[in-house]
């Protein structure tokens, strides 16, 4: 049972890791990279390492995603609603 759960999580992680490379939107790529960390958290819980899982959830899934997202904003690549406004302006 646990093997199947782990298998699903691993496939999800691989899919989102590939998605990071293929997605055109930077915001979506950052979100996908957080999903990799989230999957790793689940794997750590399955392997009965709750301490590591908490660290991974906080740093891998949360903090690194936030820092990447803030870096996108700093570089002016953060476009969700702004894309429509830009089109109107241009």
């Amino acid at each position: 049972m646990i093997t199947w759960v782990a298998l699903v999580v691993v496939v999800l992680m691989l899919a989102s890791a590939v998605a990071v490379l293929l997605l055109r939107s930077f915001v979506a790529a950052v979100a996908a990279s957080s999903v990799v960390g989230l999957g790793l958290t689940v794997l750590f819980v399955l392997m009965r390492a709750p301490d590591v899982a908490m660290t991974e959830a906080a740093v891998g899934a949360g903090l690194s995603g936030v820092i990447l997202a803030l870096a996108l904003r700093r570089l002016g690549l953060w476009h969700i609603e702004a894309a429509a406004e830009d089109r109107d302006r241009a």
Partner: protein
Amino acid sequence: MRNLASLLFAGGLAFLLLAIASQLAFGTPSMRVGAEILAVAPDEVGAANLVTAVLLGYRGIDTLGELAILFAAATAAGVVLGRRHANARRDPPGGEVLRTGADLLFPLLLVVGLYVIAHGHLTPGGGFQGGVILAAAFFVIILAQPTRHLRHSLISWIEGLAGAAFILIGLWALVEDGDFLAPLLGQGAMGELLSAGTLPLLSLAIGLKVGAELAGIMAHIAEAEAPDA
């Protein structure tokens, strides 16, 4: 030329990894130290959570090294992102839902973070995890209301005092016990909140330091001026 160089580099790295992998079978040499610590730690340190016993009791100086690395990273981020034009555009505040949600989340995250820090020697968690949760609590507020900014002087005071407290506890143990960061103050009853000697104090110092540092880094990046789109 550059492609050739990167190909050479990747090839060399693969060769090194293969050389190491061919010499070592997976999982050998077996690390016996884990079993030894499992057998000895409950009586020696008195922490119900053995991971914390290892992190703060047996490998405290490793943890100090991690704190030093984090400090260097926070300082570098502050140096690189520190400047901001006085008239730079600030982000508009979030909507009503976002602001109310942030105000509701803030005390909750604060309590969870302090709980995780205080129970680091009893349940999974500890200074680092709790510190990140504390940093998240302050960062949620900044996200909802960008005009409200963190006082960086206060943050660096908390950070410095917590780091100094960690080292001072270590030096105190060096004087008292002869080993840097050796657990002091007696073990107490395992499973009690006040047990495992100085481990809760070290955990609190780490939590405050990590929380202040990460909140500082994120506030720095968030306050950095965004280019006009």
